[in-house]
């Protein structure tokens, strides 16, 4: 028992300080195997529970330390997942993506038409103060802000929009209801803003600004909503397993969708901050926007397909 005690103390020391070197690591591995053996003996011999607890604890910590290696090539795996794995996954989940899109664009159209046709509609959805602020933002068609302004706005949009999209995803844990609400609400909001601006004659300014990044941003929100719906669906239709098991099976899909949404929104923010606030003339901006729509559509449709 005393000799064993010594070995446990040695393991304790190894875990506390290091291990610092290659020999330290093989020492740790040897000590870990020894303690696993000790643990089996302790259990079968019915040793007092406090001894077993100490061994459990030591073995657990050694296990975590030994297996806690940083996986190599994780950067490459991440990029691969985002560029290739994500479009593939989105096509697999096309029904939910369609549902998310309908939940978003439906209220969008509703809001846009309503606000354009009836001036009081916008005031009902948004506060008058906010309306005024938005009108001010798009009042002039000269959106040149200089280099500093670009980085500043890009940063703000990342903070704002990606956060909204992440919430659209996370609230899917409420059996999908949170995502549904989030999509409908944001769709309505954005549509109302667009319709209102069109109604007061600022539509061209708005289009000029958002054409470049809308494809990325709106798709990003819909994808985040899709991830939330997938999560909610896993909770609702468990297919015979427990809710936790069903969610665990879906976690790979959910991860790829979330990653894809983050990527889409990141690109949108970059474009929003650097291009959209730039000096390009209106026709060029429309053309650029059209090209973006094409890029997004092609990538999502063909990305990751086997040749």
């Amino acid at each position: 028992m005393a000799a064993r005690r010594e070995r446990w103390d040695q393991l304790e020391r190894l875990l506390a300080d290091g291990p610092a070197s290659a020999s330290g690591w093989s020492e740790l591995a040897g000590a870990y195997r020894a303690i696993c053996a000790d643990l089996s003996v302790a259990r079968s011999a019915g040793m007092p529970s406090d001894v077993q607890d100490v061994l459990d604890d030591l073995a657990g910590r050694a296990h975590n330390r030994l297996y806690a290696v940083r996986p190599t090539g994780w950067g490459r795996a991440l990029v691969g997942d985002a560029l290739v794995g994500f479009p593939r996954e989105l096509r697999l989940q096309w029904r939910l993506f369609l549902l998310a899109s309908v939940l978003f664009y439906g209220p969008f159209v509703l809001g846009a038409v309503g606000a354009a046709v009836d001036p009081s509609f916008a005031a009902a959805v948004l506060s008058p103060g906010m309306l005024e602020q938005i009108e001010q933002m798009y009042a002039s068609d000269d959106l040149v802000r200089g280099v500093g302004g670009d980085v500043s706005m890009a940063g703000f949009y990342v903070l704002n929009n990606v956060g909204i999209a992440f919430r659209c995803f996370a609230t899917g844990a409420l059996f999908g209801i949170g995502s549904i609400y989030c999509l409908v609400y944001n769709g309505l909001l954005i549509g109302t803003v667009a319709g209102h601006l069109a109604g007061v004659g600022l539509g061209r300014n708005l289009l000029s600004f958002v054409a470049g990044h809308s494809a990325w941003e709106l798709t990003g929100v819909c994808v985040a909503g899709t991830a939330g719906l997938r999560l909610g669906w896993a909770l609702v239709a468990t297919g015979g397993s427990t809710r936790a098991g069903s969610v665990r099976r879906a976690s790979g899909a959910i991860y790829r969708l979330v990653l894809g949404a983050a990527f889409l929104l990141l690109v949108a923010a970059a474009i929003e901050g650097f291009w959209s606030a730039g000096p390009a003339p209106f026709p060029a901006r429309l053309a650029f926007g059209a090209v973006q729509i094409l890029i997004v559509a092609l990538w999502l449709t063909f990305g990751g397909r086997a040749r």
Partner: protein
Amino acid sequence: MELLDTTATVETPERVSFRFRLAGPGQRALAWAIDTLVQVVLVGLLLALAMMGGIAGLGGIGLGLFFLGTFCVQWLYGVLFETLWSGRTIGKRIADLRVVRADGAPARFPDFLLRNLLKAVDFLPLFFGIGVLAMTADRRMRRIGDLVAGTVVVAEDKTNVLGIVAVRPPVTEEERQAMPAGVALRPDELRAIEAFLRRRSRLSDERAEELARYLGPELSRRTGVTAPTWERVLVLAWARATGADRGAA
């Protein structure tokens, strides 16, 4: 046999299973508090940097980086630290906790991304209401982020070997003679009595007797050990079963 235990058993590639101690809400709250403090400090630093940038005439860039930095601190702090430190943030490190996969394997970036993003829903409606609810309902005290990511938070704090459980007062000769030759107790009964004896000094005599009454009568009937109090029955039975009654008085 652990009905109310806060441990989870893990089968390792070495074919030994050991038990992880699961982190309770108190420990997790402590880790979270520390992490939040760190995040506040970081945002403060970013603000100071942005203001200095503003003074130096960088204005817009400083503000943009501030927004970006605040976003990263808010959403990516957990992901970054847990990925780099194999499941621990600054707060978790101080509180001796670690995020691992539910099967004991180390967790990786996808797990950390999911569980941290879902903090947004665990935080609803007021201050982790849903998260605490989930932790109460789940046997392994997982919040929604953990359930989706397939992770579990374990406590790595060190326990001390308390030494052999003592029998006080020691077994007298008469008691030794009066007991039956062989007393067989199940392993879980042995552990229960040991746990009882380790805490005995913290209990009043009446309370100890009250607790002993849960097991004492049945044990006495089954093994034939008798004593004036149920507590003594448990002690004697344990001593005979483990051979401690043959040691030094």
